[in-house]
């Protein structure tokens, strides 16, 4: 059974729910049960307020404006950079590059560091549980440079085969790009160990933190990764903002990603000299309002405390997995020892799509399909799964609702 008493001493899920206006709405005549948090998390009132406040009070283009609004907007934008730096414990603010999200972060590194450093015959290693966003940019780079993409295999629980990883490394291996926590299985990978091994062979490591940065304490210095990417919208912040962290010495060596305003120091018709970090990688007007509001999201998470959130989510995940595994025909996909709050499953003989549509009819939002991980689904020999993913505001009662509704749906069909 879930042990809620211990959690509630430090964590009041019902008080937290009050801060998310969307959670009080109904869907198809039923109270919304939102279990699609691994796709995107809902936003607390403080984040919505920060957005409204920015557009109501100090919307202006940043950095070069000399008027008051521009100064206020610039200060708020740069405060988010400082907050993000603390959030992942980067050494300095120059290591925090704002992007549109994880996908852009990975593409940025592939297009700049990748094009500069990957040569014909070189090898890039990823894992067998990557999101397409950590596969396709490397396919594109490998095809351009005639390099080779190698895959770390996984076992039936959805854990990496670490001994196989070491075997993949050769003198040609230049980069390991690995997901920290799997979006479809929830597996938390031993990234520190992977980075240690890779660094012993002078291999650069990029960590995809799309799914981990909302659940786990991130310390890029302790992890010692060379690049780390995250998206604001998975951390209760606005969509369209992300962070690329890179070690300063690497970022300095890299060519710019896009050319335009902001990223330049001086432009003549003969040549351009580039701006300093982090602005070298931030061409054009950035997503100012959403970046400003991202700070409110980080502050909100910090205030509640990631350790408290994690305990709550772990309890929900364990409870949901126990309950689901007792339903006839249910097979859990992703049973790693260390997991985030992702529960993926299939029901034998039933289409995940059909169950997802029916659950939605009862107000329960889950995700169905391959979760942008087609190679991983092929590994398990399934077209897709039903995925319930939990956030700080989900409750045991909501898990019970999912279980009883699923049982009801399956009974109706039998």
């Amino acid at each position: 059974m879930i042990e809620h008493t211990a959690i509630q001493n430090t964590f009041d899920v019902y008080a937290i729910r009050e801060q998310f206006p969307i959670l009080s709405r109904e869907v198809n005549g039923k109270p919304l049960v939102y279990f699609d948090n691994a796709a995107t998390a809902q936003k607390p009132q403080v984040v919505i307020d920060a957005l409204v406040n920015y557009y109501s009070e100090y919307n202006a283009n940043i950095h070069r404006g000399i008027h008051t609004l521009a100064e206020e907007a610039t200060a708020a934008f740069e405060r988010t950079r400082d907050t993000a730096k603390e959030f992942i414990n980067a050494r300095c603010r120059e290591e925090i590059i704002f992007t549109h999200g994880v996908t852009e972060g990975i593409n940025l590194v592939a297009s700049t560091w990748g094009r500069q450093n990957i040569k014909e015959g070189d090898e890039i290693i990823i894992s067998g549980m990557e999101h397409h966003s950590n596969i396709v940019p490397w396919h594109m780079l490998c095809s351009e440079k005639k390099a080779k993409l190698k895959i770390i295999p996984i076992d039936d629980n959805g854990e990496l085969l670490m001994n196989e990883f070491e075997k993949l490394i050769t003198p040609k291996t230049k980069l390991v790009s690995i997901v920290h926590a799997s979006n479809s299985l929830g597996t938390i990978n031993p990234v520190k160990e992977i980075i240690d091994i890779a660094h012993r062979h002078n291999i650069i490591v990029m960590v995809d933190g799309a799914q981990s940065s909302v659940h786990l304490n991130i310390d890029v210095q302790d992890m010692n990764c060379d690049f780390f990417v995250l998206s604001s919208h998975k951390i209760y912040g606005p969509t369209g903002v992300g962070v690329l962290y890179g070690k300063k010495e690497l970022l300095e060596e890299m060519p710019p990603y896009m050319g335009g305003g902001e990223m330049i120091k001086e432009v003549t018709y003969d040549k351009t000299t580039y701006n300093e970090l982090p602005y070298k990688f931030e061409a054009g007007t950035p997503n100012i309002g959403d970046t400003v509001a991202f700070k409110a999201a980080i502050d909100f998470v910090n205030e509640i405390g990631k350790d408290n959130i994690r305990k709550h989510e772990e309890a929900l995940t364990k409870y949901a997995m126990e309950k689901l595994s007792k339903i006839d025909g249910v097979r859990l996909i992703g049973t790693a020892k260390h997991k985030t709050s992702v529960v993926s499953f299939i029901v034998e003989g039933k289409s995940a799509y059909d169950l997802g549509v029916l659950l939605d009819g009862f107000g329960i939002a889950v995700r169905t399909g391959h979760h942008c991980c087609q190679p991983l689904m092929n590994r398990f020999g399934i077209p897709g799964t039903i995925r319930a993913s939990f956030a700080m505001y989900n409750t045991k009662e909501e898990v019970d609702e999912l279980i009883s509704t699923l049982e009801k749906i399956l009974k109706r069909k039998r």
Partner: protein
Amino acid sequence: MSEVASIEDIEQEIIDDFSLFESGNDKNFYLMDLGEKLNPLDAKYKIDENKIRGCQSQVWLISHAEGNKIFFEADSDSDITKGLISILIRILSNHSFDEVIKFNLNDFMSRVQLNSFITQRRSNGFLSMVERMKKDALAYKAKAQS
């Protein structure tokens, strides 16, 4: 051979059937019932050539022509999608190439209030299936005219 009902009449029958349901899920369950009743496609036809890929469910479709009429058979791994397919087959199969080509899916889905399946749930392969049906009808028509 009995007279084939017009597309308009079949559409109206289906609209009347669906008007009996109040909640979205009653419609979904009904679609699944219809899907289960659809004749399964022989395994030999479930090949890549006949496959219409959706993000979430897969559809296999075959057609043949008799005179100026087209006939369809289809299958899916999703019962809901199969239900949608069975409706489409009921409307379009055994009708002329031109009727299939000019069939207005958006209009029909909106009248039967199943438009969510062709808007936010584009991923189910259903929309691509209708495109394939029209393409087949166009190809048979071109062949007949040549």
